[in-house]
Structures are given as structure tokens and as C-alpha cells.
């Protein structure tokens, strides 16, 4: 079945032909099974530590499983119904979406511009490329610790700089929007360079003649950028949008470490920056409640939200080309 098996049939002596036949059978078996064996190694581990927990979570979300209570009852969709009326859940959804939007949109636009600038004849090219990727190498924990201090109300560098121009001091952690901005800054700082490199790679693969003919048509640089570059790297844009959607909607470490106190994962006194992942953590581990069933329902809703938004994003970004062409 493998397409490379050369099946040229030659006139051969019977014995040789038999042997050939046996060998071909073996080859066929090899061609038939090998792919599954190779792919299987991935799926075996994935099933054990990815799929099984997933299914188990789905089952758990239909029960009132609580770590402190040895008996578990099937409750149907009760957890989901309760979740729909849980204002803290919706608050977490709102925070997550807001932080995601504030971090992703500027991040990708910035990355696009950065890639465009890097896509020139440049001295010290490696230096610039490496410096924009440096934040990506830094661990999330380090980023969160460092930026939390930079955003500190009384002695933080940002407030010092803002104070220099007569603003503030801003209590970044306490405010709703200000805490979103602080957390988004961490995300943006860490990911912009990485996305810029992806865009840069895609830009370099655009054939020259496109630009040449556009130049002949009299299109300026700006027009070339929007009408050739952006549509041509659309697949990469879709990829980065999807990846940052997945990452952004699962956001946990940055806001968790941003909390002045780690008593649970409330995300501020008024839950102003509690993300869905944090709310899940709070319900499952972060307090003395251990409502695993409920937390599992949160997990599945989070999954649904991610899928939904990924699809919406995909459809939106796909319009780039249809609008352009």
C-alpha cells in the first residue's frame, strides 16, 4: 500500500517468484502496520495522559464529586445549569476575554510591524532577531515575578515613570482595567517577538514577482504591505491567532502570581482579574471546597469557549483574503 513500493513485475523463475511473493507480503505487512506503530506511540501516551483524563473530566462534570465526600452521585447537567447562573463564572469569562483581547490584538499587530521592519536589509540582523526572541526564552514564572514588581503601586518602576509625567500613582493590582493591562503586558512582552519571527518567515517566502508586478502597477510600499504581504501570510496569521487564543484563554500563571497573596486564586479582592482557569483552580483546589464535579464542568465550558472563539477567529481572519482579492 505504501506508494513507494515499486511493483514492477518481471519474468522470473518460480522459486524466485515465490520468494519474491513472500517478500512482497512482508513488505505489504510492514507498509500496512508500520505507520500505525509510529503514529501509535504518540496516541498511546496521549490516550493515557490526555484523552483518559479528558473523558474522566466529562464524566465527573455530571456528578457531585467532592474530594472530601467519599460518595459520588450522578447529577446530570446540574453543574452546568448552576454554572450558567454563577455570576463569578461569567465574571471570570469576561476577565479572560478582556485580557485575551488586550494582549492578543496589540501583540499581533506589533509583531506584524516588527516583522515588516526585520524584513529589510539589516545590519546586526541576528542581534535584533535574538533580542526580540529573548522574552520567549524567559520563563513565565520569572516574567510574572519581575513584572509584578515593576507594576507595584508604591515602589514600582512604571509608576515612577508615569509619576514623572504627572500621572498616578496607579494601583495596578486593585483596578479592574489596570490589572488587565498589567497582565496583558506580561503576555505581550513574552510573545510578540516569537510571533514576529513567524511572520518574518512567512514574509520571506513571498515570491518577488508579486511585488515587482505590484510596483509596476504603481502600488506604494504601504499598499504593497496591505495588499500583498498581509494576504500572503494569512495562513501564518491564522496559526498565530489560533495559538494565542488557545494560550490566552487558558491564562493562569501570570494572573496567579500577580496576586499579592496566594490564598486560593481569587484574582484580586473583587475578582477583578480572576480568569476561568483560576476559577477552576479555586473550585477544585484553591479553597476547602474541592468541588471537583463543578470544576470539571468549568473545564468543559472553557474548552467549548476556546473552540468557539477559535472558529470565530478563523472565520474572521479568513476574510482578510476575500476582502483583498
Amino acid at each position, binding site marked *: 500500500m505504501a506508494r*513507494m513500493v515499486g511493483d514492477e513485475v518481471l519474468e522470473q523463475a518460480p522459486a524466485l517468484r515465490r520468494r519474491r511473493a513472500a*517478500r512482497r507480503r512482508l513488505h505489504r505487512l510492514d507498509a500496512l502496520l508500520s505507520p500505525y506503530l509510529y503514529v501509535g506511540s504518540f496516541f498511546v501516551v496521549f490516550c493515557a495522559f490526555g484523552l483518559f483524563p479528558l473523558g474522566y473530566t466529562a464524566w465527573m462534570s455530571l456528578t457531585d464529586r467532592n474530594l472530601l465526600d467519599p460518595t459520588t452521585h450522578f447529577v446530570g447537567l446540574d453543574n452546568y445549569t448552576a454554572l450558567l447562573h454563577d455570576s463569578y463564572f461569567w465574571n471570570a469569562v469576561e476577565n479572560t476575554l478582556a485580557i485575551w483581547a488586550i494582549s492578543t490584538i496589540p501583540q499581533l499587530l506589533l509583531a506584524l510591524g516588527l516583522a515588516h521592519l526585520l524584513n529589510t536589509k539589516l545590519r546586526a540582523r541576528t542581534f535584533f532577531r535574538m533580542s526580540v526572541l529573548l522574552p520567549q526564552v524567559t520563563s513565565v514564572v*520569572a516574567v510574572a515575578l519581575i513584572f509584578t514588581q515593576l507594576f507595584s503601586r508604591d515602589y514600582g518602576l512604571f509608576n*515612577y515613570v508615569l509619576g514623572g509625567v504627572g500621572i498616578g500613582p496607579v494601583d495596578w493590582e486593585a483596578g479592574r482595567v489596570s490589572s488587565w493591562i498589567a497582565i496583558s503586558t506580561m503576555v505581550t512582552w513574552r510573545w510578540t517577538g516569537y510571533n514576529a519571527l513567524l511572520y*518574518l*518567515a512567512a514574509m520571506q517566502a513571498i515570491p518577488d514577482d508579486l511585488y515587482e508586478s505590484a510596483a509596476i502597477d504603481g502600488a506604494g510600499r504601504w499598499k504593497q504591505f496591505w495588499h500583498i504581504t498581509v494576504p500572503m501570510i494569512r495562513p501564518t496569521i*491564522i496559526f498565530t491567532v489560533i495559538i494565542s487564543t488557545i494560550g490566552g484563554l487558558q491564562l493562569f500563571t501570570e494572573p496567579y502570581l500577580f496576586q499579592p497573596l496566594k490564598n486560593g486564586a481569587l484574582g484580586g479582592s473583587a475578582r477583578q482579574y480572576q480568569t476561568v482557569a483560576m476559577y477552576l483552580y479555586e473550585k477544585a483546589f484553591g479553597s476547602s471546597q474541592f468541588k471537583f464535579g463543578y470544576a470539571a464542568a468549568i473545564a468543559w465550558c472553557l474548552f467549548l469557549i476556546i473552540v468557539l472563539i477559535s472558529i470565530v477567529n478563523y472565520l474572521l481572519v479568513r476574510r482578510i483574503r476575500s476582502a483583498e482579492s
Partner: protein
Amino acid sequence: MATVATSPSTTRRRSRRRLKMTRRFESAGPLTYLFLLGVAILSIFPLYWSVVVASHDNSAISAYPPVTTPGSQLFHNIGRVFNSGEVNISFWTALFNSAIVAGVIAFSVVLFSTLAGFAFAKLRFRGNKLLMLVVIGTLIVPVQLGVIPLFVEMKHLGWINHLHAVIAPSLVSAFGVFLMRQYIVSSVPNELIDASRVDGCHTFRVFWHVVLPAVRPAAAVLGLLTFMNAWNDFFWPLIVLTPGNPTVQVAVSTLQSGYVEDYSLVFAGTFVSILPLIAIFLVLGKQIIGGIMKGAVKG
């Protein structure tokens, strides 16, 4: 979409191509340099600042105006991070643990990803497309989704507090499979595989003698990226490990919880925790960037 192949036979073609491409690019103007320099400074500054804090004593964190120039106590503070009388965790253990975790994961991800990537890219089998879709689909499954049962599972395996619990779930990576597939599609010529097939090569021999040598650059980059990600992971180790047997990220986050909160100590620990990665990055940065960019084009 045009791709840049790397097999030796195409090197000449590539360099010719590069030449042609650069002719298209305009030289960067001073504004471009200024902007890029600004971005570079923004990228480096937070790290620089953390080193500055780590090089002062504890009062630096609350100095006003904030400190911006390095002090003299960096090595003193790093020494304190490793002094078991001074901090509540063993930083050596943490570094050692992280090295093992990240090393094993990187090795295993590269191996399994190359195998599966090869199968998806070059072998024809029923369900190829569907299974690849499933692999990509697994990318959107949030980590948090499986945390609770995974924890229960680890308990049954008796792996709580052991590094196994951190390693096992990361042994394979959908991203890795995807990356290797893309790379193999473009950089391992079908003719080469067909030729070895005609010579009577078994599939695994093809993999071993033809595919593996060809994908070495991509495998190296995938290994490095995986190593970095594993080194930086926090959420899951925080749940299954204790400060008694931590990875380096768990160790850094517990440095804060000593009796006295000492930020010069915390940032010295942070510095130590990112130092290995920065070192790798400085040495192999060019290759890593090349790998990321190559993986991207074929999206």
C-alpha cells in the same frame, strides 16, 4: 507556498535564491534601526532590571526612585540561593530535577514526533488525514481540563512527588508531530525514500537511515524548544510536586515564601533559573530562530 529546503543537494539553489531575495529588500532606514533598537531595549530591560535588583540588598526593591544600576552583591546573593541554611529549598536539587525532566521530555518528544511525523508525511495508510486532524485537535485541549483526573491517576501510579508525574504527560507533543511532519514533507525527497525502498529497505530502515539524518536540524530545534518549555513549565509541577523535590520553577516561586520576603534573593534565584536557557539561547540562538522560522513557513 515556497519553502527553503536544507538537504545538501539544494544548498546551492538556496544561496542563489537568498541572493535574489535580498535584492528585493530595501535597506533599513535610520527610523527602522531606531524602532528596532527600542524594541530590543524593551525586550532586554526587564531581565536587566531583575539582575539589578538581584545585585543589591533587600532594600533595593523598595527604593524610590527605583534602582536602575547594578550593585555589587550579585554573586553574594546567588551564593545565598544555594545555601541551604539561608533558603527553604535545595536549589541544586531543583536544577538537577529540571535538567532531568526537560532532558527526558526533549528526547522523547523528538523521537516520537519524528516517528509519527514520518508516518504522516511519507507513509500512506488508512486514516492518515483523520488522525493528523486529531493530533492538531489535541492542541486546543486546555491543560487544566485534565488536571483533576490526571492527579488521581498519578496517585494510583504512586507518582505524586516524583518526577515521573511531571515527565509522563509530556512525553509526546502534538506540536512536535505537526512540526516534524511539515519538515519531513518538504525536506526529505520522495525519490530518496523510493530508492531505498527499491533496495529492499524495511520501513524502519528507511526511517533510520534516510529520514533521521535528513531531519537532524529540525529535530535539534524541536529538542531545544521542548527542553525550554519543559524547563519553564509551572502549573502542573506546582500541583504534583512539593518544595521538597521541586523543579526549578516551583523552587523560584517558593523562594518568596521564606520567613522574610527578600526580593534580592528571589531575583537572584530567578536569574539562576533562566541562566541555563539564556546560555543555550546565546550559543544556539541562530539555529533556534532558523528552526522556528522554518517550522512556520509551512503552516
